[in-house]
C-alpha cells in the first residue's frame, strides 16, 4: 500500500542514535520504581535485607549440618538451658540443639512456605486469569470448583489427608497445603481480571490479532502484577505460619523433621512455656520477625504499585 512505498530510508546508525535518544527519555520500569521505593524507606530496606539474608542463611547453612546427627537424641543433654555446654540456645527434651534445629527447621518451614506460595499462587493466578478472561461456561465451571473448594473445611481436610498419607514429608505436606490455599488468590485475581478484561487495551489486542493465552499472560497479567506481587508477599508471610499450626496439633511435619512448627509446638506444654522457654521462644520470635518484615515489604510494594498508578493518572 501507499504507506510502504513512502517508507523513509533509514540507516542503521541513524536508527541506533534514535534508539539511544529514546532510551534516555525512557521511563523507569516498574521494578526500578519498586527498588527506589524500597531504598527510600529505611525500615523496608532493613526488612528486605533481613528476609533475604534469613532465606539465604537457612538455605545454605543446613548444607553444612549433618541433619541426622543433629536430630539424634542425647538424653543426657535433656533440656539443657541456653549457653550451657555447647548449646547456644539450649537443647530440647531429646537433647538436640535448638539452634541447629532452628536453622534446619527454618529451612524446612521457609521451604514449605516458598513452595506453598509458589504453587498456590501459580494455581490461583492462572485460575483467576483464565476464569476471569474467558467468562461464560469456562468461568461458570471454574467457579463451581472454586465454590466447592471454598466449602471444604480446610483444617479438617488437611488433617484427614495427612492422616491418610502414611509416609508424608515436607513435599507432600506442601502439596496438600497447596490444594487449599489457592482460592483467595484466584478470587482476587479473577475479579481484577474481570475488570481488566473490560478495558479497551484487551479489545485492542484482540483486534491486533493477538491470541487469547498471550493476551492473558502477556497483556493482562503485567497489569495486575502489582496486585500479584502484593498478594504473593502477603501470602508468603501468612504461609510461614501455616505449617506451625498443624504441627502444633500434631498433624504437621513428623517429629524427626525439624521445623519452626515442631519447635513452637513445644509450647503445647505449659511447663515448657516458662521453665523451658528456649525450646519454643526462638522459633516464635523468628516467625514474628520474618512475618513482620515480609508484611512490611508487602506494604511498600503495594504503595509503590499505587504510586505508579497515581503517576499514571496524570
Amino acid at each position, binding site marked *: 500500500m501507499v504507506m510502504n512505498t513512502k517508507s523513509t530510508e533509514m540507516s542503521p546508525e541513524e536508527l541506533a542514535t534514535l534508539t539511544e535518544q529514546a532510551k534516555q527519555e525512557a521511563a523507569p520500569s516498574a521494578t526500578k520504581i519498586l527498588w527506589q521505593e524500597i531504598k527510600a524507606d529505611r525500615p523496608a530496606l532493613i526488612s528486605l535485607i533481613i528476609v533475604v539474608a534469613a532465606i539465604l542463611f537457612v538455605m545454605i547453612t543446613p548444607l553444612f549440618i549433618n541433619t541426622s546427627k543433629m536430630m539424634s537424641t542425647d538424653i543426657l543433654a535433656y533440656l539443657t538451658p541456653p549457653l550451657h555446654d555447647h548449646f547456644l540456645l539450649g537443647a530440647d527434651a531429646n537433647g538436640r540443639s535448638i539452634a541447629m534445629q532452628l536453622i534446619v527447621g527454618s529451612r524446612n518451614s521457609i521451604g514449605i512456605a516458598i513452595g506453598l506460595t509458589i504453587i498456590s499462587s501459580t494455581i490461583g493466578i492462572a485460575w483467576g486469569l483464565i476464569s476471569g478472561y474467558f467468562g461464560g461456561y469456562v468461568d461458570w465451571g471454574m467457579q463451581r470448583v472454586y465454590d466447592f473448594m471454598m*466449602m471444604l*473445611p*480446610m483444617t*479438617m*481436610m488437611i488433617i484427614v489427608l495427612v492422616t491418610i498419607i502414611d509416609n508424608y514429608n515436607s513435599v507432600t505436606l506442601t502439596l496438600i497445603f497447596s490444594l487449599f490455599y489457592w482460592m483467595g488468590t484466584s478470587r482476587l485475581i479473577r475479579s481484577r481480571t474481570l475488570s481488566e478484561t473490560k478495558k479497551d487495551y484487551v479489545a485492542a489486542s484482540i483486534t491486533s490479532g493477538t491470541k487469547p493465552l498471550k493476551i492473558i499472560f502477556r497483556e493482562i497479567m503485567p497489569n495486575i502484577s502489582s496486585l500479584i506481587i502484593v498478594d504473593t508477599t502477603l501470602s508468603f508471610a501468612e504461609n510461614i505460619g501455616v505449617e506451625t*499450626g498443624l504441627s502444633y*496439633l500434631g498433624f504437621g511435619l513428623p517429629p524427626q523433621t525439624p521445623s519452626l512448627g515442631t519447635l513452637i509446638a513445644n509450647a503445647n506444654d*505449659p511447663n515448657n512455656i516458662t521453665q523451658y522457654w528456649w525450646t519454643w521462644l526462638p522459633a516464635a520470635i523468628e516467625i514474628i520477625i520474618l512475618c513482620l518484615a515480609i508484611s512490611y515489604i508487602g506494604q511498600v510494594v503495594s504503595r509503590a504499585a499505587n504510586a505508579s498508578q497515581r503517576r499514571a493518572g496524570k
Partner: protein
Amino acid sequence: MWKTILRRILIMIPEIILLSILVFLLAKAMPGDPFTGSINPRSSATQIEHLKQLNGLYDPWYQQYWNWVVHLFHGDLGQSYQYHEPVTNLIGDRAINTLWLSAFTMILTYVIALPLGLYAGKHDGKLPDTVIRIYTYVTYCIPFFVILVIGLWIFGYVLNWFPTTGSVSPTATGMWMIGSRFLHVLLPGLLGALFGTVNVVQYMRSEVIDAKNSDYVRTARSKGVPQKAIYKHHIFRNSLLPIAAFGGYSITGLLNGSIFTETIFSYPGMGMLFIDSISYRDYTVITALVLLFGILNLLGTLLSDIILSVVDPRIRVN
C-alpha cells in the same frame, strides 16, 4: 429474594453430595478403624471382630455409603463408635458450645475491630492509624495458638482470673450457669478477638477511606451536613455494609480457629471432638463434622450474600 435464596440452596445440594462422598471415602481411607485402638486385655479380640462385622465395616464402601445416606434421610447420622451415642446427639451438645464460643468471639472481634478500623480510616496516615496498623500486623504475625497458650497460662493460671478448662463450672446452676458459661468463653473469646481483628480492621479502614473520599460524601458536605453526622450517616453506614457481609464469610475462619481454641482450652466443642475422633477413627463423627462444617461454610457465604442483598439496595433489585 426468596427465590434467589432457594436457588442458592439448590446449588448447594450437589456440592454437599460431592463433599459427603469425598469425606466418606477419605474417612475410610485413613489407616485403621474405630476398633484398632480399643485393644486392651479387658476386651476380647474376637468380640471386636464381631463388632466390626456388626457395624458393617467389611462391606464395600458404596454399600456403606448408601446405608449411611439412607440413614441420613431418616435424620440418623449413625452412632459414634467412641461415644456409643447417636452422632446427632453428640454433635448437638458440642455444636452449642462451639457456636456459643464462635458467636462470642465474633461479637468481640467486631466490637474491638470496628472502632479501630473506623478510627484508623478517619485518621489515615496519622499516628493513631500507624499505631493501629502496627498492632494489626503484629497480631497477624503471631501464631494464633501461641497466643492462646500464653494467654491461658497468664490469665488462667498465673493470675487465676478465668477458668481454664471446660465450658461451664460443674457447680453452677440456674442463672449462674449462664454466668459461668460466659466466664468460660471470655478468655478464649477475648484472645481470639484481640488477635483476630486484623482482617476486619484493615477492611473497615480501607472502606472508610474509600467512603471518605467518595463523591457522595462530598455531596453531603456540600449540603452542610456536619462532619459528625457525615461519619454517622454516610461513612460508617456505607462502610459497615461490606463488613456485615464479611461476618458470614468469617464463619469459616472461626470454625477453623475453634479447632485450636477448643483443644487448648479443653473446651468440648466440635473442633475438639474432631481431633479426638480423628485419632479414634470415629468415622461417623468425622464424616458428620466435616459435612457440617462444610454446610456451615456454605451457609456462611449464603448468609453474607443475604445480608449484602438486604442492606445493599443495588443488589436487592437483581
